[in-house]
């Protein structure tokens, strides 16, 4: 049951500073309905959000997008976070990062950088990103970050077209001198769901990739942190998405909407509260949106109601339940105990022949047929 009193304080804020991006990755975690630049929060609004977030308990912010470097005021936003005592990590494609910009960001208080990489091969990477030259820009960005002495992590979204190169991707991270490689199997929401037929791997691919990662993990122990984000379609276990609804972190979108997770904009009738209308503390503690699926004291349907795992996974991911069944209160179909799990088995069955449609690249309006 949900304990009495106010909910636990949030630790982290994902700040989607803009949805504009030079890359067009077909699995982008931004919503299909991308926020317009004209509606973006202004510098002073982000400054206020970060101050409120710090007072609420946030100690860590991922400055993300889209591509946050497209915000000319990024340095001022970093400085605002630093002034509020919030640790900043820049989450970037690397495009647009030069020495002058990095020096300014560092002077403003930037603490670390996470760089996305699409593939270990430059041509394949550029094809997935939908931008010629993207890989070369990443290589330059990595070298700049290392030269500046900032901690650097690679973030790789894994799918059918790069899983067979996971070893080379880790080797690339080693060659670029990174501290961490996050290997995140595609989560199928928004753009990822739209492109699922092109991105879904096979069981064989995943099994081989897992073995490769475990071998690299032994070799790199103590030097590079390898993080494997599970492919929940295949594992039969639901994930406690975001550590629980409104439990650990919050997302602020470019136009000021506040969400328990970046995918939650897709849920029907959520009516996300906005920092332009409400104080962040009210949004976290009291808003209907943040309380709707918090903890386990909401009407879970399906087997979750009596399942001991409900205190660990909170019924899995609400966005996934909605995306696959049309009902956000159902057990996450990723769970093998879900009556809807066969929906995924038909997709992940070794017998199912994968089709390979072309990507629908992430571009404003591209998701509209």
């Amino acid at each position, binding site marked *: 049951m949900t304990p009495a009193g106010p909910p636990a304080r949030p*630790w982290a804020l994902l700040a989607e500073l803009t949805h504009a991006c030079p890359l067009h990755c077909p699995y982008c975690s931004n919503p299909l309905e991308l926020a317009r630049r004209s509606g973006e929060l202004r510098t002073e609004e982000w400054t206020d959000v970060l101050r409120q977030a710090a007072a609420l308990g946030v*100690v860590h912010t991922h400055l993300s997008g889209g591509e946050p470097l497209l915000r000319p005021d990024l340095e001022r936003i970093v400085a605002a976070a630093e002034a509020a005592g919030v*640790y900043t*990590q820049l989450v970037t494609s690397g495009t647009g990062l030069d020495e002058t910009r990095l020096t300014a960001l560092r002077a403003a208080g930037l603490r*670390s950088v996470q760089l996305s990489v699409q593939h270990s091969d430059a041509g394949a990477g550029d094809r997935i990103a939908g931008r010629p030259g993207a890989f070369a820009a990443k290589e330059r960005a990595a070298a700049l970050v290392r030269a500046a002495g*900032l901690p650097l992590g690679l973030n790789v979204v894994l799918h059918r077209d790069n899983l067979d190169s996971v070893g080379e991707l880790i080797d690339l991270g080693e060659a670029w001198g990174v*501290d*961490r490689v996050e290997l995140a199997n595609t989560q199928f929401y928004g753009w990822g769901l739209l492109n699922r037929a092109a991105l879904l791997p096979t069981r064989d691919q995943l099994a081989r990739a897992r073995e490769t990662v475990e071998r690299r993990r032994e070799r790199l122990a103590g030097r590079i942190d390898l993080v494997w984000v599970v492919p929940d379609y295949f594992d039969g276990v639901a994930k406690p998405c975001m550590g629980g609804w409104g439990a650990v972190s919050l997302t602020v979108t470019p136009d000021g909407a506040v969400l328990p997770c970046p995918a939650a904009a897709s849920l029907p009738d959520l009516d996300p509260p906005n920092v332009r209308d409400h104080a962040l503390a009210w949004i976290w503690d009291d808003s209907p949106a943040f309380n709707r699926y918090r903890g386990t004291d909401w009407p879970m349907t399906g087997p979750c109601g009596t399942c001991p795992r409900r205190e660990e996974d909170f019924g899995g991911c609400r966005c996934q339940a909605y995306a696959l069944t049309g009902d956000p209160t159902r057990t996450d179909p990723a769970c093998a105990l879900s009556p809807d799990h066969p929906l995924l088995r038909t997709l992940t069955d070794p017998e199912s022949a994968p089709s390979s449609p072309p990507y629908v690249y992430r571009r404003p309006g591209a998701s509209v047929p």
Partner: protein
Amino acid sequence: MTAAAATGWCPALAPALMLRHDPVRGADLLVLPERVVVLEGHAGQIVGLCDGTRTVAGIVGELAARFPGAPVAAEVPAFLDRLRGEGWLT
């Protein structure tokens, strides 16, 4: 004698880390690029002395003065070794 005490090592927080007091939770925190470590008890005060200028013996001395009677000499060097093993001190 631990590895920490045996050398002239002057512990310093690794550049990726931030040590801060969290007034909301009333706790000292080590903030890393992807995680937050809550420091229990007086651990925050120990880490706070790791500024790259004090030797392990120097840190032990200051803490012994601050906390008379506490098992500082026995426990602090091992604690510093452990943090170095995590990559949090250099």
